[in-house]
Every structure is written in structure tokens, then in C-alpha cells.
């Protein structure tokens, strides 16, 4: 049969961000995929040339709006490692609390978008309604809704008092109840299962070979989560990665849903153990020198920072490898063989964040 080329994107109703996929289709079945990127390439890595290393914190926050806090945390940890300073224990716990809140809001956003991708509009609204509560916590505690800007080299810039922690915990209780109420609608629904189960299967060996990270990797049965590195205060908290065996879109959805609940648990633990004390140390001495690698688990997976500096105020090189960049090859390998109508669901199932990818 004759093959047809169907372009999807960069403007497409289900794609939140611009990515272009050139699909070669025989009948309704996809046989080949060629992606094209570069619609939102901003060259942020090169901005280190014109800013000093303290100001880069605000630049890396803008690599990705959704996981801004983790980008800044990853960068600060890298610089702290190079300069040989350590953030105070309270700052480390605060970083955990805010980063887990960030993970929750990102996953809730994704769950909504995913519901939208198979046309479940009301579920989309319900998830975003819950997400709004997480954003309220952000705004009340840090001052900003999404790009929270709390990290700085040597610690954090804002503190939580006891009342605020109390309030966060009570809000989380409500959020947990509401997320649980939506659980059966997403995970047990006949129609949702029909659209997602068995679509876009990635076996565990494939997932490792293609270098996938985050929920995409864990949904294929590989227990690999950068939080196992124990950065910030995570080493002192009880943590177990969420894994699923199936490796299809439904498993990826389930992993993210369970991670929302796991994040609530982590924040509870961190809030219970948080020590009193300073929230930042003064950064003194010469600018960083040498090389460092820093890795943090973002909502979408492992983010990788390579920092090189020659001991000047401006860094020599900053390399950011975002999770979607690592997940795209896997997406391209699971699309062939699927029906054209599965494309939106499967593309969204890896949680693509294109602005991150291109930086």
C-alpha cells in the first residue's frame, strides 16, 4: 500500500509545546517518525557568558517553567560542590519540601493534560482544580506561583514558620483526599484503559538501551530514581521509587499518579523532621573552579548539569541535559506500529517538555 506523510505539530491541539513530528503512515499504521525541533531554542546555556555565577540561578530557573525549582536546586548543588560549601540542614529540608511540591504540581498538570489528550475534559478540569491549591501553597510561601525563585547558592532565600508548615500539612490532607477521589476515574475507567493499556509499550531492556529517565523508565519496571542519590535531605527520609511493570501509556500514567501521593508523604516526613537553624550560609572566597556534575530527579526524570569554571566570575561552560531530551529517542522508537489516533496519547505519555529540551 502507498505510504502517506502526515505532519503533526508544531501547532496541534494536544501538544502543549511546539514539536514537529513527520509521520509516515501506511493506511492507519505509522511506519516511520522523524522529529524536528528548534522552534523554541533560546541558547540559555550560552547566557553564562554574560552573567556572573550567582545570576545564573535565575537563568536556569527559566529553562523550564514547570520544574524551575529543581533546575535551580541542581545548579546550586553543583556550584556548592565545586566551592566546597554545604547548605545548612534546614535549607536542605526546605529544598525537599519545595521540590516535592513542584513535583506534585507538575504531575497534576500532566494528569490533566493526559486526560485532555483522550478527550476527558472534565477530568482535566478536576486535576487542574487540585493543582491550583498546590500553586496557592507556592504563592503563599515563596511569593511566586510557578517560578518560585527560592534557591540561592549556599541555601534558600525564604523560610517557613511553624504556622505555615501546619497550614501546608492541612492543605495537603485535602489535596490527598481529592486526588484519591479522582484515582478510580482515571485508573479504573473502561474507556481510559481502552485508550492507554498496551499502547506504546517500552520493555525494560529497551528503556535502558534508549537512555530513558524518570517515570518513563520506572513504568518499564526499572527502579531508578535520582532521589536514591540522597541529595538535599533526601538521604534522611524514607523513600522508595514507584515502579510499574507494564511499560505502556497506562503504566506511565499510574506511576505519575502514585508519585503525587508519594510526594505528599515525603513532604509530611520532611515537615516532621525539619531542624531549626539557618537557611543559608554566606558565600565567601574565590569563585568556583574546576568541573562538577549534578543530578536531580525532576518530575519528568533525571536532569543532568555539567558545570565548568576557570575560577572567574563567569562560568566557562554550563551544559544542561533535561529529561525530555533523554526520553525523545524512546518516543520515536515506540511510535512505529501504532495507529495514527494513538499518537496524541503516546506522545503525551512521556510528558514532553519541549522548551526544556531545547533550552
Amino acid at each position, binding site marked *: 500500500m502507498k505510504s502517506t506523510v502526515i505532519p503533526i505539530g508544531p501547532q496541534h491541539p494536544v501538544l502543549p509545546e511546539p514539536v514537529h513530528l513527520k509521520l509516515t503512515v501506511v493506511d492507519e499504521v505509522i511506519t516511520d517518525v522523524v522529529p524536528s525541533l528548534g522552534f523554541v531554542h533560546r541558547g540559555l546555556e550560552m547566557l553564562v557568558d554574560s*552573567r556572573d555565577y*550567582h*545570576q*545564573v*540561578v*535565575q*537563568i536556569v*530557573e*527559566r529553562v523550564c517553567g514547570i520544574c524551575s525549582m529543581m533546575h535551580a536546586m541542581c545548579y546550586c548543588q553543583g556550584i556548592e560542590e565545586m566551592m566546597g560549601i554545604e547548605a545548612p540542614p534546614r535549607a536542605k529540608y526546605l529544598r525537599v519540601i519545595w521540590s516535592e511540591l513542584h513535583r506534585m504540581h507538575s504531575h497534576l498538570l500532566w494528569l490533566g493534560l493526559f486526560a485532555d489528550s483522550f478527550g476527558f475534559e472534565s477530568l482535566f478540569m478536576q486535576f487542574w*482544580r487540585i493543582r491550583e491549591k498546590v500553586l*496557592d501553597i507556592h*504563592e*503563599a*510561601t*515563596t*511569593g*511566586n506561583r510557578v*517560578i518560585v*525563585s527560592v534557591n540561592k547558592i549556599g541555601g534558600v*532565600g*525564604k523560610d517557613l514558620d511553624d504556622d505555615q508548615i501546619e497550614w501546608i500539612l492541612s492543605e495537603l490532607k485535602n489535596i490527598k483526599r481529592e486526588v484519591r477521589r479522582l484515582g478510580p476515574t482515571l485508573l479504573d475507567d473502561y474507556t481510559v484503559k481502552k485508550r492507554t493499556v498496551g499502547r506504546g509499550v517500552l520493555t525494560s531492556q529497551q528503556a535502558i538501551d534508549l537512555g530513558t529517565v524518570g517515570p518513563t523508565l520506572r513504568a518499564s519496571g526499572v527502579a531508578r530514581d535520582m532521589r536514591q542519590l540522597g541529595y538535599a535531605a533526601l538521604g534522611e527520609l524514607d523513600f522508595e521509587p514507584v515502579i510499574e511493570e507494564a511499560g505502556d501509556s497506562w503504566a506511565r500514567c499510574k506511576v505519575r499518579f502514585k508519585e503525587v501521593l508519594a510526594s505528599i508523604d515525603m513532604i509530611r516526613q520532611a515537615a516532621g523532621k525539619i531542624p531549626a537553624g539557618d537557611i543559608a550560609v554566606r558565600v565567601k572566597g574565590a569563585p568556583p573552579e574546576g568541573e562538577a556534575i549534578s543530578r536531580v530527579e525532576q518530575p519528568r526524570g533525571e536532569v543532568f548539569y555539567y558545570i565548568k569554571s576557570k575560577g572567574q566570575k563567569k562560568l566557562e561552560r554550563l551544559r544542561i541535559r533535561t529529561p525530555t531530551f533523554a526520553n525523545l529517542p524512546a518516543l520515536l522508537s515506540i511510535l512505529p506500529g501504532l495507529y495514527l489516533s494513538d499518537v496524541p496519547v503516546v506522545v503525551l505519555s512521556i510528558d514532553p517538555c519541549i522548551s526544556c529540551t531545547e533550552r
Partner: protein
Amino acid sequence: MFKMTPNILRNLITDKATRLYPFETREPWTGVRGELGIDIEKCTFCGICALKCPTGCLSVNKKEGLWICDPFVCVYCGVCVESCPKKCLYQDLVYREAADEHGKIVMKGEPPRRKKEAET
């Protein structure tokens, strides 16, 4: 049907989840990083805020006593507020409203006079 009925009843008696936004606004949270402002009386025009600003939206002219902010470039990160030695910068609890014209905020204050000038 049995599952749906309680849901329908609950939705009938509970409030809306949304707000009629332009007419009904929520109280801002305390500590929100809103629009940047300056207490120009206290300012010594040291220029630290302009140096620390990651976007370069601030500029300070010590000679003429000018503090200029480009609000369209500001990203509300709060770095300048934290680093101000005189604590004369502050952020409002409300965000800047949309504007149809590009403009800068220019504040003029009394530049600090050097000792020599003060004597003459």
C-alpha cells in the same frame, strides 16, 4: 446511577470551584512578590540592586540621583530586595497590570552629597 446520585447532590449544594474573576478577586497572600517599588528617600544610590539584578532591568545614576526600572524586563525574583543594604526596595502584594504602552519607572531622589560639596 447509584454512584452518580451522591455526586449530583453534592454538586447541587456546594459552592462553585471558580471565581468570577474580574469582579471578584481573592485577597493576596502575604509575602507575594508583586510589583517592585522603591522608597526613594532612603536610597543612597549605591547601585548594588542594579549589579545584582539577573535581568539588568535596573539602572542607577548616582550623579543625578535617578533610579530607573524597566518593569517589562523585571522577572519578580526579589534578588534586589534581598540585597539592598538600606532596605529601601519593596515588592507590592499585587502584580503589575497589563499595559498598552512601554514605559519605564523613573524615580528621582536627592543624590548623596560628598563631604566636600556639603561644605562649600
